[in-house]
């Protein structure tokens, strides 16, 4: 379980997170939705200690992770996998090498075992015959799949998805969402998805939290969010220009 309490984060004079509280339940898919530029990616990067909050505490399975030593931090990070917005594949490595890299560095498996695990992970995300290609030879959707394969290959307990479908066409979006659901069922990890894909994300997530002005303004099941009376949530879901969310 991930618990964030009273998280404040500013970049210069810009306040991004403003006393945010959020609990991510174990073994479920939680979506964090909200308008662009509201700090969703900043929030997810706090969970894996790529950013440190100005104040507040983050607990992973009861362990505080704010201000901890690097060695301890790495032990916490071993619980995580992450799919970045642009997949963040190592561009000097092939697809195979990208997926194999965490296995080579973090396990003592033999070459054959690594090969078998990588091919299995690539197959699980629907990729075949691409293992010798470089990331710049792949489409956006394929890169995300490779990123997903790399994120799940060590079988982590928690996977963070930073806008996994941004910039993809509707069919590939659906395919990626389906893939997240399928891999979740298969591996049983806790997932946090940062997204503004409305309404598709409601079909994937079991919990939804709405981030606005640095705070979680509503947190509940997809049905509760869909039927919310909160004017910000309603405007965001309907995509209306009129309402409390100001479009600059």
């Amino acid at each position, binding site marked *: 379980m991930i618990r964030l309490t009273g998280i404040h984060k500013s970049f210069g004079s810009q306040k991004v997170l403003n006393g945010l509280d959020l609990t991510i339940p174990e073994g479920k898919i939680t979506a964090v939705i909200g308008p662009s530029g509201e700090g969703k990616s900043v929030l997810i990067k706090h969970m894996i200690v*790529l950013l440190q909050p100005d104040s507040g505490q983050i607990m992973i399975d009861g362990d505080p992770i704010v201000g901890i030593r690097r060695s301890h931090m790495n032990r916490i*990070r071993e619980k995580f996998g992450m799919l*970045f917005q642009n997949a963040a594949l190592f*561009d000097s490595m092939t697809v195979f090498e990208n997926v194999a890299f965490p296995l080579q560095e973090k396990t003592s498996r033999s070459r054959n075992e690594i090969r078998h695990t990588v091919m299995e992970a690539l197959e699980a995300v629907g990729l075949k015959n691409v293992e010798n290609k470089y990331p710049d030879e792949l489409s956006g959707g394929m890169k995300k799949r490779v990123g997903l394969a790399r994120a799940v290959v060590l079988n982590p307990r928690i996977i963070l998805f930073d806008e996994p479908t941004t910039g993809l066409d509707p069919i590939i979006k659906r395919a990626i969402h389906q893939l997240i659901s399928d891999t979740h069922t298969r591996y049983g990890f806790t997932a946090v998805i940062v997204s503004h894909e409305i309404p598709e994300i409601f079909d994937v997530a079991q919990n939804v939290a709405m981030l606005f002005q640095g705070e979680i303004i509503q947190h509940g099941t997809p049905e509760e969010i869909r039927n919310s009376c909160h004017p910000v949530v309603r405007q965001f879901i309907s995509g209306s220009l009129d309402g409390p969310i100001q479009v600059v």
Partner: protein
Amino acid sequence: MGWFILYSLYMAVCRPGSPLQILKQMRFIGTKSLFVIILTAAFTGMVLGLQGYYTLAKFGSEGMLGTAVALSLIRELGPVLSALMVTGRAGSAITAEIGIMRISEQIDALETMALDPFKYLVTPKLIAAMVALPLLCAIFDVVGIYGGWLVGVKLLGVNPGAYFYEMEKAVELRDITSGFAKSFSFGVIIAWIGCYKGYYAGHGAEGVSRATTESVVLTSVLILIWDYFLTSVLL
């Protein structure tokens, strides 16, 4: 910046990373710089041959040309010019490579895998530069001496025996080791600044471009400043 180099040196000693990565970096920093080093060295030696002959002829000491060329190259020009050439060719590429990895979140990806980016990105480059620079400097010195020989002996008629005999008499082991010590420390500076500027590159293509320019300028200036202090100590 101080913390960056201290931690990099600590990692180079305690957790140097994969030998394959270090060899790859040595190929990139060392082998791939050979052409530019040989070219620069040949013409530097040839210019030294011309200028040295012109000056020494005024005192009737053309026979000392080999000594003048060799000492200038071994003590000063070899280490400094080879370091400046590597800065332009490899230092800038190191900054650009790490900078692009920073802005495309590849460094973040390493961290999320609980892997230390220094072990994969910084340490192999640092070790490779520390090894490659003295070797490149040695090649620079030899090619430069033969460049001076070509101009002095073949074009201007200096006695070939005198060119090498006087050089052998005048050049001491201390001259050679001080040149290598300079090259070694220049290797540290090139890898340090190159990696540091890339690691903390700003946003987007502009941030990487600015980091690359700053890296080349700062490394070049630091090499010249450090050369002065080192020379004053090693003289």
